[in-house]
């Protein structure tokens, strides 16, 4: 018994040491973000909540007609999320700020896929149906998708939606960043092109970041000093600047580290050189060996008494 116990601890110690050696693995996580992607800068101080972007999105993506007309402003009374029939929605928030006539000032927030630089959905997709393109779009390939919906679980912004009402050919659906349109020369996303006040500015992400910083610097009294999407989830192609803090307008707090960094680091370091299965089976084998020895002894003992 004493010996068995000692053996067990020895084996466990060896496994622990092996794990400790592997603490700094050969695998170091590297971002796969495209170097010069496109992006969109949404200036919430400009948005007037006209829902033209929703209408344009519906039109250019050939989505089914909405239940309520895009001209109807009453849908803003409740908070909505994008779903399989709507890739983008506008929500209205009241932060408590009032104008000089004591009227609450609304802030309109456009919600759609943020097109992360290192998307968690792409990392989670086990068949490569989702991919981050050079132009910045997180692209979905329906021919590869097996419908596992891991992307929906992985997305920190709760964006991908599933075609639950379509039993035969369901798809994961989300904003496409108008991939085909922006791939063409001079192409722009449907929502950005139609915005009557250019609350959405389309361009290279680096240019937009500079633009956002300039706007904040020129109007420090107007904007809060933060660009949502600059660092969130390791940076996103869609960026937001606002007059009211992002916490008050339904923006989800997201860690600034790229989300796949942690999960992929854990996974890749666990499986590099197959050390973890080898260690696991080593421990199991050790337990079997010692307990087998013990069992043989016990068997012999009653046999001896007989």
């Amino acid at each position, binding site marked *: 018994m004493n010996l068995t116990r000692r053996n067990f601890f020895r084996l466990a110690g060896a496994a622990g040491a092996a794990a400790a050696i592997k603490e700094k693995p050969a695998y170091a996580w590297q971002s796969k973000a495209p170097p010069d992607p496109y992006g969109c800068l949404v200036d919430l101080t400009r948005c007037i909540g006209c829902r033209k972007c929703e209408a344009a999105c519906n039109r250019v993506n050939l989505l089914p007609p909405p239940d309520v007309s895009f001209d109807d402003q009453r849908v803003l009374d409740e908070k909505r999320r994008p779903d399989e029939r709507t890739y983008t929605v506008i929500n209205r928030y009241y932060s408590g700020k009032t104008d000089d006539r004591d009227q609450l000032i609304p802030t309109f927030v456009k919600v759609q896929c943020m097109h992360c630089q290192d998307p968690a959905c792409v990392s989670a997709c086990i068949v490569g149906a989702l991919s981050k393109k050079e132009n910045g779009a997180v692209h979905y390939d329906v021919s590869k998708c097996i419908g596992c919906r891991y992307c929906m679980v992985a997305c920190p912004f709760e964006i991908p939606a599933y075609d639950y009402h379509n039993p035969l050919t369901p798809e994961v659906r989300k904003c496409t960043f108008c991939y085909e349109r922006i791939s063409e020369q001079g192409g722009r996303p449907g929502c950005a092109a139609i915005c009557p006040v250019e609350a959405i500015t389309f361009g290279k992400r680096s*240019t937009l970041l500079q633009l956002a910083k300039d706007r904040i610097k020129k109007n420090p009294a107007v904007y809060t000093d933060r660009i949502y999407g600059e660092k969130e989830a390791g940076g996103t192609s869609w960026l937001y600047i606002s007059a009211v803090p992002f916490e008050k307008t339904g923006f989800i707090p997201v860690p600034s580290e790229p989300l796949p960094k942690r999960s992929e680091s854990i996974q890749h370091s666990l499986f590099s050189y197959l050390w973890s299965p080898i260690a696991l089976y080593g421990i199991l084998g050790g337990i079997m060996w010692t307990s087998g020895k013990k069992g043989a002894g016990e068997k012999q003992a009653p046999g001896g008494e007989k």
Partner: protein
Amino acid sequence: MKRKVGLLLLFLSAVSTGFLPAYNGQGAGNAFAAGAEEKGDAIALTETEWKAPDQMAAQIRAAEEVPFVGKVKEECLCVRQQRLRDKGLSTKDITHRYFLLDSPLIRKEEDQYGPVRFMHSKHAAVLKDCALCHHYRPVDPEAPETTRCSACHQESFQEEYPERIGLKAAYHLQCTKCHKDMQEGPVGCTGCHKKNVPDHEKLVQLPEKPEPTQVTEECLRCHQKAGEDMLSSAHWLWKGHSPYTMERRKEVLHGKGTTVINNF
């Protein structure tokens, strides 16, 4: 006197029991027919719609392509205002009193609204400050002090000038901001634009002499939501929110919707 009251009571009871056909289907049908005639007149009127005498010229001006001004002189608003004042620019220097904001750039993405008819002189006379709209000037010293909006603001999202917004956004932001700040002038879409409603002459499908219910059904064929909204409104229920009264509630104790039966 007594007889008069008696007659009135008789009249009221006749209406409530439906003896008098004042508001039955036939009556409404006639009313509709009359409405259709009026509509015909209205069409005749639109054909001879009043047009500004310089409408054609404005239309031609709107379609003109203006050479793009890339760089503008960086100066603060106060300095510019003072400079324009010193130059003695006034409403007399205005070359065009009226503009039709109808550049092809604006109609590129959608054509849901008609062009804005901008009264240049009126705005200038009211504001007495050119710099509020003409906020920058080209760097070229030879160029005139004020230029057209479409000289600087043309296509949106230009890579060389990321902060330069497109013409449509420039109009919208400039106009609505000022209208809001001054609490003067329209800020909604249809305050400035005429909405391009599709021609209902072709959309409406009705027989020669339609029944009133047929007309309602035909409207509801497309405007289903409007019908549902009507059913939940005070026009149908005879009670509901009253946004213009104190505390947004108007208490109704008697009458339609409360104590009277059969009043719809």
